[in-house]
């Protein structure tokens, strides 16, 4: 039995604010589940603080935000800040949806670690998470 036998990546998928488009988050949720991840969905109309609290309670590894409205520049930095405040700054914060390229540097500075723009294949996202997860597990193991 390897040390990771029971480890399973947990991802929180969140929708912030008034953005009620669910096709993207639906497709991603199913793809992540099919990749063997445990997905927790917050539902719609969440505030950044609700999502941060949920991430702590669920002890997820990844917080993924699907954003199809213009409010991402408000919500995402706020979420990153709340996560740090609540001692959950170690979680991987990623976002996907309609995010203009020009916004990406600012979001990255705010603590969003990866942004998948419109049209990204689910496979790309799954691969990214799998790689990240493998690296995290390896680091944990070498760290003792």
């Amino acid at each position, binding site marked *: 039995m390897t040390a990771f036998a029971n480890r399973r990546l947990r991802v929180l*998928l969140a929708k912030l604010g008034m953005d009620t488009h669910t*096709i993207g988050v639906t*497709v991603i949720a199913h793809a992540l589940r099919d990749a063997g991840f445990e997905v927790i969905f917050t539902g719609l109309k969440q505030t950044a603080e609700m999502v941060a609290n949920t991430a702590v309670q669920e002890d997820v590894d990844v917080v993924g935000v699907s954003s199809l409205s213009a409010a991402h520049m408000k919500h995402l930095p706020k979420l990153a800040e709340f996560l740090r405040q609540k001692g959950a700054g170690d979680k991987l914060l990623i976002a996907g949806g309609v995010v203009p390229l020009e916004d990406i540097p600012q979001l990255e500075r705010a603590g969003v670690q990866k942004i998948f723009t419109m*049209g990204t294949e689910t496979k790309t996202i799954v691969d990214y998470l799998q790689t990240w997860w493998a690296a995290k597990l390896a680091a944990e193991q070498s760290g003792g």
Partner: protein
Amino acid sequence: MAIPNRHPDNPVRDALTPERSVSPLTDAFNAWQQNTQGPEVAKRGERQTPFKTQALHWPVHPLYTPLDLEAAGFDYQRDVGFPGEYPYTRSVNPNGNRSALWTMAQVTGFGRGTDWAKRARFMLDQGLQGLILEHDLATTNGYDSDDPLAEGEVGRAGLAIDSLEDLERAFDLPFDRLKYLMSVCNAPQPVNLAMIIAALEAKGVDPKQFVLHIVNGILIEYTCVGRYIYPPKHGLRIATDCFEYMIEHHPNWAPISIISAQLYAARANPVQELAFSLSIALQHIDALLERGHSIDKVAPYFHFVTGIDMDFFEGICKLRAFRKIWARLMRERYKATRPEAMKVRVMSSPGTMSLTLQQPLNNISRLAIMATACALGGVGETMTTPLHDEAHALPADEAIRVGAAIQHIVAHETGVADTIDPLAGSYYVETLTRQIEDAVMTEIDKIMAMGGALAAIERGYFQRELAREQCDRNRALEDGSRKLVGVNHLVHAEERREIPIFKLADEVEAEQIERLQELRKRRDQNAVDVALAAVRDAARSGTNLVPPCLVAVKAYATHGEICNAMRDVFGVHHPDAQTAGV
């Protein structure tokens, strides 16, 4: 699978087995298959095994003949009949598009709230008589601009309406030229309707000289898009209140549209689109009948918005089946007698689902094909065309011109609109129309067995079905089994293109909030409290919500406050993963 429960996978081939060979045509068909087509297939194979339709993935046979119609029991008089006559399969219009073409409309693309009035004026100056009233997300979802959830959204996708004052400001328009206004603000409908009525009154507009069209088909929102507030059954009650208020006070206005195009944009296949949107319409109708209205009175008010994507033949057959099924439902299920009740009113439009961010000029070809299919399917009263560049540009003048030209090219250069329902009688088209009709009726029966559209929505059935289609379509695009030029086929390196987002200065939001908070200080709070209590009472007692909302908006109760008064009574809708489809 939602698909065709009763749909015969291969009705014709069964009839063609040798022992059942009954006609010379059958023998000839078998001989063709064996001696002529067979060797070719044996030698060269086929491009696909099996061939399937674009949206429904039903098998497509190599050849359709009179045998297919025979097997389906096709009867000309019963199945298609004549234009303007029951069952209206060929057209609801006695002379199709020969007397007049459909109304050609144009989607104008994104709007920005603060600019709405300016843009509206501009469009009226261009000779347009109708406008769409767009609200921002906070308003559509029933929140005031100072709600924490509204942050970043105020005034962005449309107008921010917190109080009657905001709408009065926006209505600084030449109403002598504005004949038609469409509002898509569904969930807070009684508040929205009351605001518009009060603002029109304040402007001195004669409601008889003007048509207000509210979309109001709220149940669709619970299946996709998601702009709802209250639990579905209360959403339905609200929509019914508004419908009833309008037909009593403003019978020339348009109290409902079922935007089934939202379903197909959410990846519903044609059978799901028709079955879901029609059963939703039936649910709205039942609610009206329960209040004592007659089918002949309410049915003619029902209006649908649909369209055709790249599922060319299925789209055409969907439009044909749509007319027939509506007529059948009205006559068989509700015993309607007025022809107006049986003629479905449809606006159609090419879809946006297959438009690509990559190689945007390709979208012009797609739109032309889809618009042709709309025309071949009989369009309806109006056609709109989306913009080929909609995915990433502001409505550029050129995109708007091309969009308009597409309809003119189809209408004037191809002749497809010159004879009524030109594809009728095609062995394939009639077979497919019939299969779609049967499958839709079966699906509607299934929904009725669940207790109707409301029950189906409450238990998440529509949402789950759509989620499955969404995941399937995505998978098919990713694994290449569905081809989309520029996305997974004939891809070439090109510059990355983007969807622009309106960036609004934070001051706009701050100003709106300031105005709102200032209003709260200066208004007569006692009058507001009394008015809000009356809204709560009406919500509880079941009397029509529009009159107390009218009083409340005139007392300058805010949009969010009135919505909250109803939240106090109705609660809010929180879909879980199941009922959200996730």
